[in-house]
């Protein structure tokens, strides 16, 4: 009797133990009780090294998480961030190193469109979570063919489409001039813009000029567009060229309707250097708060971001937009890891990433929330149009998006 009771107790204890053990110890490669290994490639050198600030900032963010919160659910994030120099073959080599030699749990915020294209197939064959891809291309949201890859920001294609829709709604017969950088960003934007115009209305485009990222100025391109008789500009440039273009347009006394892409719509890096009086009335679309715009200074998330930058990444230039977007992405990544609890398998990570409901992320515009589902791999899809008035962007209209969730 006594013996039976004891063994029954023991049995019950054992089942509890083993059940707990099952729930606790479910780890994929790269995870231990104390550590989660995360891989990343960034262009710290080469043509696109300006983007490399994102990787440094995220390393700082994870250091902050590890030191102030003891990591995620007690496990420290070990970010292995390697320099691929923006060269696709190098990315393949480094990602294989991360996956096969270093045995990382997942990839996070690998930067660049061509570089990510080079590893797209590989990571999906190997079933490595390839999360929050740092590229605005639209191909990262294709869960049917590529169930292990998920993008992040609203894609350029959608943004281009939003501008075209807005243009057609406000102007019945525009004469459009397109100024674009000759790379994948430029192409993606213009493709989306074309889609928004539809095949028949493409005739509205009177001039489509390109420049190379290595060119000194875009002055002649501006004149070319004006001489072609354009009265609308779709300005697909990076910050330096955007500022030049805005200045030049004002200089020659030209007053076209001006759409400026979000990647170049920074108050601190573009509008102020170009002269705020020259930028009045320019249109753009946004999803992030422009942290260089003093208007957002009193918002708690911006304050927190500033405190973070001052303490953990003091050498960075806060005017660089990547420091804000990479912070938001790192925040979301930590949230996804947290939601995995103690079941840190690659399958569960993808499951959690594909089931985000209304996650609020710092530095997003008020009202923008992250949502995903097993057949919607576009975490952020809304943007809002804004017009430059006085010295800041004034949001107007509804949240716009293309992909329906």
């Amino acid at each position: 009797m006594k013996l039976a009771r004891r063994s029954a107790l023991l049995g019950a204890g054992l089942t509890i133990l083993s059940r707990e053990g099952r729930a606790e110890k479910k780890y994929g490669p790269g995870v231990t009780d104390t550590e989660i290994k995360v891989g990343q490639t960034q262009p710290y050198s080469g043509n696109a090294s300006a983007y490399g600030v994102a990787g440094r900032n995220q390393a700082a963010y994870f250091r902050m998480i590890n030191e102030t919160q003891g990591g995620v659910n007690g496990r420290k994030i070990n970010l292995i961030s390697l320099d691929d120099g923006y060269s696709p073959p190098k990315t393949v080599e480094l990602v294989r190193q991360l996956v096969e030699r270093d045995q990382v749990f997942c990839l996070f915020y690998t930067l660049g469109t061509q570089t990510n294209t080079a590893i797209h197939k590989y990571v999906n064959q190997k079933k490595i979570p390839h999360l929050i891809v740092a590229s605005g291309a639209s191909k990262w949201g294709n869960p049917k063919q590529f169930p292990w890859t998920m993008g992040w920001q609203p894609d350029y294609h959608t943004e281009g489409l939003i501008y075209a829709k807005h243009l057609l709604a406000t102007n019945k017969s525009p004469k459009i001039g397109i100024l674009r950088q000759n790379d994948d960003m430029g192409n993606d934007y213009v493709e989306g813009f074309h889609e928004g115009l539809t095949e028949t209305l493409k005739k509205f485009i009177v001039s489509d000029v390109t420049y190379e990222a290595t060119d000194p100025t875009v002055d002649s391109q501006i004149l070319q567009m004006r001489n072609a008789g354009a009265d609308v500009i779709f300005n697909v440039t990076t910050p330096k060229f955007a500022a030049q273009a805005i200045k030049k347009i004002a200089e020659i006394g030209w007053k076209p309707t001006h759409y400026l892409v979000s990647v170049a719509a920074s108050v601190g890096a573009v509008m102020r250097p170009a002269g705020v009086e020259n930028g009045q009335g320019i249109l753009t679309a946004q999803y992030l708060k422009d942290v260089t715009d003093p208007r957002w200074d009193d918002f708690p998330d911006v304050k927190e971001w500033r405190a973070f930058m001052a303490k953990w990444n003091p050498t960075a230039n806060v005017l660089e937009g990547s420091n804000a977007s990479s912070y938001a992405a790192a925040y979301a990544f930590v949230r996804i890891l947290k939601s995995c609890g103690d079941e840190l398998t690659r399958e569960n990570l993808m499951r959690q990433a594909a089931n985000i409901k209304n996650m609020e992320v710092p530095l997003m515009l008020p009202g923008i929330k992250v949502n995903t589902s097993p057949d919607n791999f576009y975490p952020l899809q809304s943007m809002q149009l804004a017009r430059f008035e006085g010295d800041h962007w004034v949001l107007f209209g509804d949240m716009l998006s293309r992909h329906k969730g």
Partner: protein
Amino acid sequence: MAAIDNSWATKGGLGWIATTFWVLLAVGPLAGFFTQDPSFEYYMFMGQSMLINTIAILGLNLLIGFNGQISLGHSAFFAIGAYTTAILMNFAGWPYYATIPVAAIICFGAGFLFGFPALKLEGHYLALATFTLAIAVPQLLKYKAIAGWTGGVGGLILDKPDAPEFTRLGTDQYLYYLCLILAMLSFWIVRNMLRGRSGRAMMAIRDHAMAAGTMGIDTAKYKTLTFGVSAGITGVGGALSAITVAYVAPDSFTLQLAVSFLVGLVVGGIASLPGCLVGGAFIVLIQNSSQSISDWMKVTFSLRYDVPAWAIYGILLILLMYFMPRGIMGGIETLWLKLTHRKETQA
């Protein structure tokens, strides 16, 4: 360039060191049949990159080391080779192996044609002219009229070939052997070329073009031919890179690639055939380890700032050039001479 000695080109026989080396390269990957190490395939991939760089450097070495024509534009021929393979595989449905000879021939043609204007230019003027090739090609690949074929900025995605059933090799193991066989073939061709009349003519042109011409060497013919063969070999490297990476894009073939070939060549040793292997390995290994060194320094000395990896790379290069001005193979040779013929060198 009088300091260059031609011992590697003119020595008889394969030499037991070279033979052992090639045998080691061929036997090493068989370890894959015994090991359970998950990173084995990654090491095979590294091996492929090293061999591909080796082939490209071999092509460059033929031109610079043995013919005295400087090229900063070999990334362009590498790109042409890669795109030839990619386009044939993607649009014509060719099997990967059939595209390699075509890539070699097209690159030979391109190099041969470029050799003609190059005749008028020497030394740093030629370097500048080839430099424009390296800059122009990535932009030309994006050109709208041909973007349908090249995939424009997005590039072309290829299918990685599987190893044939009967070999029972893993994909990466198999591709490694493909690279190795083509590397050996290229070395064999170059070695035979150098040992014959054409090799002597090439080197005579390098050492003193006018004297070579006076002796009856058709300098124009040899210079353009060398340019063609050099580009053809580098193009084979490009074709292999397209196959192993399974993706080509303009960003893969920037000026940085051309410079890294040149660095590999100088580090390995100008006018040294084994130096090409050393250089190929150097490019792949040192770029990776300079970042590890940078991370290690940051952690060990608990620095607040990142140590730029490329600065470390630069310092390593300077040190190397200071202690081994003739590259690693040149350094080893000097050391060997010092050890074996101590009296002669001291005298």
